[in-house]
């Protein structure tokens, strides 16, 4: 019974995890471009955005995204918005972190790669996607792995707005049955999830190790 409930919660946790990655990985790339843009307004805005996302608690950001529409616009919050709010808050928070990882990777590329590509006639877009990005991905994989592992554990923050994910479930069962066991089991589940994440990322790193 307990395992069944926790299992249901885990599926929600995995959904949060997957959807957050799906949105934040590409969004982070856009933010990174904004951060490196020659346009100083765009650069300034993204800088402030990243600064706020990294400088305030994710739990607070969750509350703002969830309750914001009500307090600011007096919009009634529907029940289905809860999950959407979780995804929005996680995606924009993680995009900020990924953006900085992308930026560090892109800026670490030797200028000679751009110059060689230019002399060979590659356009800007081709240079980025064919020459720069593949090498950047290899360089940033370890940092991205770190973020993804943190994300698995951070999904438990959705507890703050009572989203029924694994941690929320565990807490409820623990309170109802006055036992700490469900929380321990949840901990084991998070750990197993992260083992899987680490295994996948290790395979990716291996796939990129055919060159130096």
């Amino acid at each position, binding site marked *: 019974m307990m395992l069944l409930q926790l299992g249901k919660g885990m599926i929600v946790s995995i959904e949060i995890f997957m959807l957050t990655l799906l949105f934040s990985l590409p969004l982070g790339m856009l933010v990174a471009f904004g951060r490196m843009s020659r346009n100083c307004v765009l650069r300034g805005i993204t800088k402030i955005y990243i600064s706020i996302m990294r400088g305030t608690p994710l739990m607070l950001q969750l509350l703002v995204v969830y309750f914001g529409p009500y307090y600011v616009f007096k919009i009634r919050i529907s029940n289905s918005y809860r999950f959407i709010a979780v995804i929005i808050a996680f995606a924009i928070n993680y995009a900020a972190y990924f953006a900085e990882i992308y930026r560090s990777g892109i800026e670490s590329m030797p200028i000679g790669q751009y110059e060689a590509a230019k*002399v*060979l*006639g*590659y356009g800007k877009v081709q240079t980025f996607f064919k020459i720069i990005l593949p*090498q950047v991905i290899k360089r940033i994989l370890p940092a991205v792995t770190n973020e993804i592992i943190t994300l698995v554990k951070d999904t438990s923050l959705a507890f703050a707005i009572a989203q029924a994910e694994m941690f929320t479930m565990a807490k409820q069962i623990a309170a109802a049955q006055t036992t700490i066991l469900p929380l321990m089991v949840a901990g084991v589940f998070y750990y197993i999830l992260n083992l899987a994440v680490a295994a996948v990322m290790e395979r990716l790193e291996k796939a990129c190790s055919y060159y130096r």
Partner: protein
Amino acid sequence: MKLLEMRHVKKEFEGLQVLKDISLSVEEGEVISIIGPSGSGKSTLLRCATMLEEMDSGELLYMGEYAAKMKDGKCVYASKAELRKLQHCFGLVFQNFNLFPHYSVLKNITDALISVDKIPKKEAEERAEKLLEQLGLAEKRDAYPYQLSGGQQQRVSIARALAKQPKILFFDEPTSALDPELTVEVLKVIKALAKEHMTMIIVTHEMQFAREVSDRVIFMEEGLIQEQGTPEKLFGTGNERVREFIGHLTGK
């Protein structure tokens, strides 16, 4: 025919005049070496010629067509499409090779042909294999740059530049990152190209090589061409400064 013409090129970096007034024209089949102390502007000149650096003032022509011209006292570059066309005229070999580490030797050479010049893959590969054969790298076609010695990497980068069949090939200190033994194998390749009358401009510190391979040697210092002429003329010059510089490097 004049393949390249540079007229009154000036370039400064943060107030420092690196090129003060350089004019240079290159005939088809000519091999030119540019020598001079570091900081004299040799590399900057090459970078202006290959459009990696924009000139502050001056004109640049390939095959008689303007890449940049002076208009109302300002240096104006041609349209992007125009420049891309002119870019086909030349290739550049870098000091530190700048091969693409994630591509195999073969792909380093063929990728630009296929994805930029839209040459069929089969034809591009045939062209690359022929060049690798010529440069003694046939068995390295599937290797990755990190698996090669510096000399082999530089030869691959020469093959990569040649594959685009440029009219003129620039070398920016092609052996400065190599030890003496590997330097020899790269210089041999360049000498072979000179024999086939490939038009080349080579920035180098290898005096003996410059003397052997060049039709014309240019001595640059402080952003100006101080002296130029046939190797015999330049290496036998009465110009004190040039003698001093060459003497330093050849140990005479």
